[in-house]
């Protein structure tokens, strides 16, 4: 009987008559991960509508790309996803190499895998720590940064920079690893492995954390695909897609011979190659918890990949190869290449007109598409859920605004 009433669209429930309020979250707000402005239309604590306003960090990277040569553009890619600049370098380099028909040496290939997967760990550490911050716990953030600092130390040794590396470049890498680096890297991995269990205790399996994230911001796989979501956001919804495995051959060739699992829930379970915490009963596929969990799994997968890459790289005896000249001419034609970056699929579109300077550069960023789904996810949630959902998308404004 009551079921019938519930379904009757003519009957609506109403509480105290309240007025809707427009609230500006950002651009200077602690949990919008940079200069994102969200305009919330709220009824009390309930968000009825949310509209993201972006562009506060727009630096005309695409326009700049039309004025510098392909190698000169590398530093600008650093500043897109500044938390995983190595992956940005790699994406652009591969796109240019695809246009030029270049093939890097075997040693450079393994070094690129090593570096980019390492960078993925560093990026996910920020995502994880900042997510804890969004949910009101401060300590995991510092635990994450403690480990990230060690990775940055290693990067600094390799290329001299801690944030904007410009290390991977068109035609290879700017330098080889310094002596002893691999040993320090392995030492870090050994030390880091048990730390992940701490993260799981503090966040993934923490009762309050699960309460705050499970069943919140559920993104169905259809919606995720329709909105062009990618990376952990897409895989958190149970879509089995990873460009490292499914992408174009020039990219997948990089991972030839590497063994890794795509962190996605298939047949009702996550990969079982390591011991992972169990999925809580409240969690729904596609909610904030799953997106977060996918990132945590990817960290473990990336550690495996880094270990494999260390072995292969040290087994390589050939030269590292030289990067192309700064003013190397680009052939006529256009290419588009998407690579699997920590935040999702980063695509670079490049039009060459026969000169060294590209005719058109386009960067398709994963966070851009991932953020566009926010309005859909936040419909009817509570204000406290907004940071939880935004954090679970793990956006970087540098990449969105470019």
């Amino acid at each position, binding site marked *: 009987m009551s079921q019938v009433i519930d379904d009757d669209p003519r009957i609506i429930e109403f509480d105290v008559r309240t007025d809707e*309020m427009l*609230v500006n979250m950002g651009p200077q*707000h*602690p*949990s919008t991960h940079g200069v994102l402005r969200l305009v919330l239309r709220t009824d*009390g*604590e309930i968000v009825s509508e949310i509209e993201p306003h972006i562009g506060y960090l727009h630096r005309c990277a695409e326009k700049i790309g039309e004025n510098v040569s392909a190698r000169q553009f590398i530093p600008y890619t650093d500043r897109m996803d500044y938390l995983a600049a190595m992956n940005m370098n790699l994406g652009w380099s591969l796109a240019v190499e695809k246009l030029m028909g270049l093939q890097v040496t075997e040693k450079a290939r393994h070094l690129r895998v090593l570096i980019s997967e390492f960078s993925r760990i560093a990026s996910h550490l920020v995502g994880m720590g900042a997510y*804890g*911050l*969004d*949910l*009101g*716990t*401060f*300590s995991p953030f*510092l*635990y994450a940064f*403690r480990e990230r600092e060690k990775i940055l130390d290693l990067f600094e040794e390799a290329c001299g920079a801690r944030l904007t590396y410009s290390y991977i470049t068109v035609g290879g890498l700017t330098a080889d690893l310094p002596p002893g680096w691999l040993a320090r890297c392995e030492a870090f991995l050994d030390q880091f492995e048990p730390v992940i269990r701490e993260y799981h205790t*503090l*966040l993934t399996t*923490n009762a*309050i*954390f699960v*309460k*705050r994230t499970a069943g919140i911001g559920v993104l169905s796989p259809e919606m995720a695909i329709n909105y062009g979501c990618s990376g952990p956001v897409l895989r958190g919804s149970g879509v089995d897609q990873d460009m490292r495995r499914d992408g174009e051959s020039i990219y997948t060739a990089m991972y030839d011979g590497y063994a890794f699992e795509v962190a996605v829930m298939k047949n009702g379970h996550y990969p079982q190659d390591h011991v992972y915490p169990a999925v809580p009963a409240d969690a729904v596929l596609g909610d904030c918890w799953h997106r977060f969990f996918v990132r945590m799994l990817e960290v473990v997968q990336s550690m495996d990949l880094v270990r494999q890459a260390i072995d292969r790289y040290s087994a390589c005896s050939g030269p590292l190869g030289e990067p192309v000249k700064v003013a190397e001419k680009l052939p006529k034609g256009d290419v588009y290449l998407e690579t699997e970056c920590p935040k999702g699929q980063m695509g670079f579109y490049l039009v060459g007109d026969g000169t060294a300077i590209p005719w058109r550069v386009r960067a398709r960023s994963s966070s851009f598409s991932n953020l566009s789904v926010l309005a859909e996810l936040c419909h009817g949630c*509570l*204000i*406290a*859920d*907004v*940071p939880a959902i935004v954090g679970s998308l793990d956006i970087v404004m540098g990449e969105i605004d470019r």
Partner: protein
Amino acid sequence: MAEYLIQTVGLPEWLAWSLMAGLSAVLILNLMAGGALVFIWAERKVSARIQDRLGPTRTGGSFGWLQSLADGIKLLAKEDLMPAGADGMLFRVAPYVSFCASFAAFIGLPFAFDMVGLRLNVGVFYVVAVLGLEVFGVILAGYASASKWSLFGAMREAAQVVSYEVPLGMCIVVPVMLAGTMDLVTIGEKQAGWFTNWYVFHDPFTFVIFWVYVTCAVASVNRAPFDLAEAESELVAGFHTEYSGLRWSFFFMAEYSSMFLVSGLAAVLFLGGWNGPIPVASLLGLSDGTGDTTGVLVRLVGLGNLLGKATLGVLIMMWIRWTLPRLRIDQVMTTCLKYCTPIAAVMFAGAMTWLWVFPGGVLDIDTGSRRPGEIREGWLDGPGGRGAAAVSTPSSVPNNAAVAEVAE
């Protein structure tokens, strides 16, 4: 001491009393302010240690122990900003309302036997009632700031604190029932002896209700994971978003002294008050009830005991804060209405039944000291008990809104 001033120094009575009142007020105020400074410093050090950091290390020597003072000076020097649309009067008054409520509650909290600002026979009731007024300043601040974030914070705080008063009250009723009085001094007195006399160990129900009290106390002073009113990742800074400088620091001080107060209340109600786990003094044949030097010394030890217990409580709250994520507003309300309140109600009934079934208590270890149940509100028994002595000798109870024997 007031008598001393009157009789020996020859001051007029009113002057002696006002001097003593002023001294007591200064003592309590300094305890609050100084306590807040210490706790803010401790919070920094504790959080730093939890997070693999060092925290303040320079100001005032190697432990940075002057850091809070430096911060205080910085806050004093800050510009006192007020938003253009704010309700000026309420905006200015709100921090003081919070602070005063917190301060006024301290008047009723005993620090050792008879070391209390004002010994009220409704002590617990008074402390809880006044502490509940702290939310008042927060609501005013949230409303007067003319900021939506502040308003959200204020409404959250109101909903949360008003709800949590229900289970908190139920938890507090249990020790009151066991002691048969609302006088905090008598409640503390009744738990004298070995730690088995503490009400937390009185029976299983009180043990459970102690933890309910801890939860509700953390919630009622707005500490993580219940710090929704100032949830920085959601509401920027909640109700004090628009505050700066000294006014902001008043909110801060009120928060820390409230933490100290609920911890102190927990110590008095459940953890034996100023009585140590082992009744060293009574084993040595000393008593804190006497007015001579020994009595005062024993009381000072008791003061140390209570401050230690309260500080421990504050440290535990810090530990919780730096470990757990924050709950959502609906989850906070669920915790209160669906868990804390029913559990508190059942435990209350259970404790009542226990008292009825085992009137003398089960773990009744004869310690040679006063046994629970021996002390009653004196006026019913007639002269004899110590409570009676305290009530019936007016000179030992300086009666004034803020006169305390702390001064002795």
